[in-house]
């Protein structure tokens, strides 16, 4: 009985209040980030230094790149659990190629150029995404299960290729003509690590794709209402396949950055990275049901997680507490998100009532909501 009566009165009465509340909610990830920075600056002198900020942002970049790929999948209404394993696999592929390919029959060792190595790694990552996409679209496997399977398969492949051991010394040698791999993760441009530049470039590209291309709109529509999207003539299957490929590609990039920075590729790299990526997307306000989320939110989410983890390390909080606090922050983010959605829903319902009320019998085209 009480459910609908108040909403009918809401638009005039509560508008200002709702708006302040929703602004606070809307900007919650940003506010959280500011609060974190202020808090840690007080607790530690070394937190707010240029050097530390760059280091932390570099950590953020790895997760942000994964999260950008993950955002595409989550916007479409899916999930990609395989990205952590893809990080490991792409690093191992780079490692095996940089160590030199032993061709027994010819008794030679091939040393592919670095750009070939990078290309192969990216292809492998995209391939993992492609398999995910095929499983989801052609075989109707639930995204959670399909990518869970690929989580194991990709990790297993990484272990098989490397036989479980780490590839050291990926710097290459001038004789073999394969130096320069280390620049991807270790290089700097204008004093800023390459990883951060890559994150920025990826964020811009993703932003443009999502905002200014039909494909971007299709991703939102497919996640928002797949049936309606299909009926509108959107190639839903193609969209689904592509988002997994994008996610796999991003994971491969992250894998390259990490193995380059360490100049070593271990098959275990990237374990549980998928969870950090999902957390960043969720903290950024994306809905796991699809159709809602944006790049700005994802970046904020990645920064909140990254600064929180590193900040806790700097002020010397134990690892166990770090994990617990991170979990609590994620849950809190979703709780706040739900509150925001409730606000929005009741506001929209009120608007719908208002639009009905202002709808006069004579049809005057567009009418501004007359209630002020």
């Amino acid at each position, binding site marked *: *009985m009480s*459910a*609908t*009566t108040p909403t*009918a009165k809401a638009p005039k009465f509560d508008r200002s209040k709702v708006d302040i509340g929703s602004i606070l909610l809307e900007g919650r990830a940003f506010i959280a980030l500011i609060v974190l920075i202020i808090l840690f600056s007080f607790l530690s002198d070394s937190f707010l230094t240029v050097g530390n900020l760059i280091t932390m942002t570099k950590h953020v970049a790895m997760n942000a790149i994964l999260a950008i790929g993950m955002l595409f999948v989550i916007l479409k209404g899916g999930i990609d659990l395989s990205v952590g394993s893809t990080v490991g696999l792409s690093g191992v592929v780079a490692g095996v190629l940089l160590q030199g390919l032993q061709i027994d029959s010819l008794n030679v060792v091939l040393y592919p150029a670095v750009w070939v190595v990078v290309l192969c790694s990216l292809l492998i990552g995209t391939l993992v995404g492609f398999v995910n996409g095929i499983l989801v679209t052609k075989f109707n496997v639930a995204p959670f299960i399909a990518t869970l399977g690929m989580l194991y398969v990709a990790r297993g492949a990484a272990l098989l290729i490397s036989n479980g051991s780490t590839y050291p010394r990926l710097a290459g040698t001038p004789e073999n003509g394969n130096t320069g791999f280390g620049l991807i993760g270790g290089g700097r441009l204008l004093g800023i690590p390459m990883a951060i530049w890559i994150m920025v470039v990826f964020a811009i590209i993703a932003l*443009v794709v999502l905002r*200014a*291309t*039909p*494909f971007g*709109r*299709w991703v*939102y*529509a497919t*996640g*928002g*209402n797949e*049936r*309606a*999207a*299909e*009926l*509108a*003539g*959107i*190639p839903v299957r193609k969209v689904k396949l592509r988002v997994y490929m994008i996610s796999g590609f991003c994971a491969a990039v992250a894998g390259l950055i990490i193995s380059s920075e360490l100049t070593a590729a271990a098959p275990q790299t990237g374990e549980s990275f998928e969870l950090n990526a999902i957390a960043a997307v969720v903290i950024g306000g994306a*809905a796991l049901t*699809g*159709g*809602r989320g944006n790049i700005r939110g994802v970046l904020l989410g990645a920064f909140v997680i990254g600064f929180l983890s590193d900040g806790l390390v700097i002020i010397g909080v134990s690892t166990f507490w770090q994990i617990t606090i991170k979990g609590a922050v994620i849950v809190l983010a979703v709780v706040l998100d739900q509150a925001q959605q409730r606000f*929005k*829903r009741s*506001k*929209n*319902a009120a*608007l*719908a*009532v208002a*639009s*009905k*009320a*202002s*709808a006069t*019998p004579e*049809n005057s*085209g*567009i*009418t*501004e*909501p007359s209630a002020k």
Partner: protein
Amino acid sequence: MTASAGVVTGAVNTDVVMRAVGITKNYGPTQALKGVDFEIRRGTVTVLFGENGAGKSTLMKILSGVETPSAGVLELDGEPVALRSTVDAVDRGIAIIHQELSLAPNLSIRDNIFMGREVRSNGIFVDYKAETTKTAELLRHLEEDLGPKTLVGDLRVGQQQVVEIARALAGEARVLIMDEPTSALSGSEVEVLFRVIRELTAAGVAIVYISHHLEEALEIADHAVVFRDGALVAKAPAAEIDLAWIISNMVGRSADDLSPDLLDEFGEVALRLTDIKIADSSNPARLAVDGLSLDVRRGEMVCLYGLMGAGRTELLEALAGRTPLLAGSAELEGKSLGSRSIAERVELGLTLVPEDRQRDGLVQTMSVGENLTLASLLSYARRVFLSGKQEKDAVDREIRDVRVKTSSPTASITSLSGGNQQKVVIGKALLTDPRVLLLDEPTRGIDVGAKAEIFALMARESRKGLAVLYATSEVGEALSASTRIVVMSKGRIVAQLDPRTTTREEVMVASGETVDEGNGDAR
């Protein structure tokens, strides 16, 4: 009128067991019920008549605790009650058989019947033995030869409906609400149901019954109540009324004012359907559409009229490319639709405005503008990038063109009223520049004013040469807003009528809504 119903009316006392006073229900901006007063009497069958969207089902949902009213009071035995949930209602002896089946297909008949009210032994464990015995008893009573442990998913729809009925009976209700209980039942199953209903009323149970099969409903009725546009417009003892009384009260006069301008002469054939057969998705052995042939010309506005289950939705969905044709051919301006995808059909000029706006028509997470351009997005793209200006122009033009009342194109689609949302869905279809526009129940859940606007819009496009084919189950719409009425029943075309020379009764009779014989006096 059967003798037995009359006997029951006379024999049992007519105490009011449940009363609704001034019940109003708003769904967002739509007023589904407008201050309805309503009584349910012990030992009688009260039948609710009314067209789709008249408010019957909403009232039933309120009476059974599925929905809470926006205003008004429910009284049970003279005491005001607030039904918080269906469980609460069942505890108070009010059970409902839903129009949409609400069974879990992965569970057995027994587990479905006792879902939420499991029989306990020692207060902890489920007493499966007692449940099985009781289920077998109920099924025997309903003359359904099924084992209690049969999976509900393995049953055909009619049998599932019997399980729904059994579930309601198991609760030993004092008030039993039946919302379209016979829509999937066979003739003999209906007879069994009516026998059970008479047994129940004889035992003092009050029954509220909704059906679109007027004749059938009148057979079981003690009291008739007619709803129209969310209001209770007429009530009378069943003995004093006939079909004509029901129909005239059901239809009222509101539908007559639609009458948009339509063409008299039409262009060449835009859509040609030849011997279409479509399988029934819920029962593959059955055909939902069985050998249907139809031509729709440019400038025509053809209405597909029929009851629920007549095959209208199945036909339109198959034409849109959502489900495959089993046999037959569909051609758009001479080009075979064949195995083309939905996207290709949209490209070719055939678009469907679906029946369920929320489920299939709108992307709720998007704005008004984004919804409008969803189907025509590629035409605003240069290379890979969208032209923001072109898209914005198209949105502004279309908002004006289909008269969407919105504060801004960037407002959330959920901030619009139902009628305006539907205009957005239609505007989205029109932006694809269609040759043939299919609409499935385009005015479902929309108030009268918006209804007229939507039909005016469809008519305007048809005058421009668009071929319009729409499905409706409201006779008033069919008569006042079409150039031709195609009546479907059981997957076939049973009549093609000219709306200018046809009466309501003729349309209803043709569709099988009323039975032909012994009914001549109704006209």
